[in-house]
């Protein structure tokens, strides 16, 4: 949670500097965010490769656990796909890319900005932040009406960290490992799925 606030703080700071044009020309004109993205993805890769515990979780648990992130992927994409059918302003491809953030707003918005521009990037940022916030607030209700996987599904990629405490509290500790697994799988998939949707589909 603290981390999310700092991230939002940096975004807000940039926003204010941009709005007030209180910036040196160099920053306004050059685009070094692409190189920063290269660096970030290299680092994220190292993090995934180095994380022994995430590989262990995957090896030690029942095979049907894979159904959990799978139903989050299908559910999210079908959901945003349905929205795009009823809202002519939103194209299917754009909706799918935003939905494929699964709540991982920092990385998904960075990717979408780079590929499709700032407008869709901001939609992805807001939408995926909202996913985290709504999950934090509504897990008890979701679990009551949609069963024990509801919190994990709603949290998406955030089920492994920011929304894990509420999920585990309202679903039961024994579900925490499934939440972490699902969150890890979705987190790893975001950098593959978002560019795939925007560039290949």
């Amino acid at each position: 949670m603290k981390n999310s606030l700092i991230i939002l703080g940096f975004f807000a700071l940039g926003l204010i500097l941009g709005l007030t044009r209180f910036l040196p020309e160099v920053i306004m004109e050059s685009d070094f965010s692409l190189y920063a993205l290269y660096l970030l993805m290299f680092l994220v890769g190292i993090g995934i490769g180095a994380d022994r515990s995430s590989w262990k979780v995957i090896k030690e648990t029942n095979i049907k656990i894979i159904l959990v992130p799978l139903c989050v992927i299908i559910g999210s994409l079908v959901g945003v796909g349905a929205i795009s059918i009823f809202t002519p302003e939103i194209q299917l491809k754009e909706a799918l890319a935003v939905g494929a953030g699964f709540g991982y707003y920092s990385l998904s918005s960075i990717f979408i900005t780079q590929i499709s521009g700032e407008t869709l990037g901001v939609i992805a940022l807001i939408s995926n932040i909202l996913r985290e916030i709504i999950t934090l607030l509504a897990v008890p209700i979701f679990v009551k009406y949609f069963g024990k996987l509801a919190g994990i599904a709603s949290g998406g990629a955030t089920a492994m960290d920011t929304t894990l405490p509420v999920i585990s509290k309202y679903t039961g500790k024994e579900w925490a490992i499934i939440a972490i697994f699902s969150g890890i799988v979705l987190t790893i998939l975001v950098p593959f799925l978002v560019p795939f949707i925007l560039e290949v589909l």
Partner: protein
Amino acid sequence: MITVLVLMTLGIGLGFFVGKFPKVIKGVDKMTTWSIYLLLFLLGIGVGLNEKIINNLHTIGLQALILTIGAIVGSLIFAYITYKLFFKSK
């Protein structure tokens, strides 16, 4: 974007080897966090400079919200089905 995926795959390979050194991992984690801060800061600047976004913020916000609702409701329905079919006995 292919560059990004290649870099990430290289990173994963390198990660397998440096995984043994907690100090390196800690440094990588820190740098990851700061590059996320940097990129979101830059996105903030880009948005602030972009009048098209600033003037349409209410529409953009609304679109974001309905997409979120779609993603969550879709996930909940599929999670409910998956739970009933495969996890209920647990």
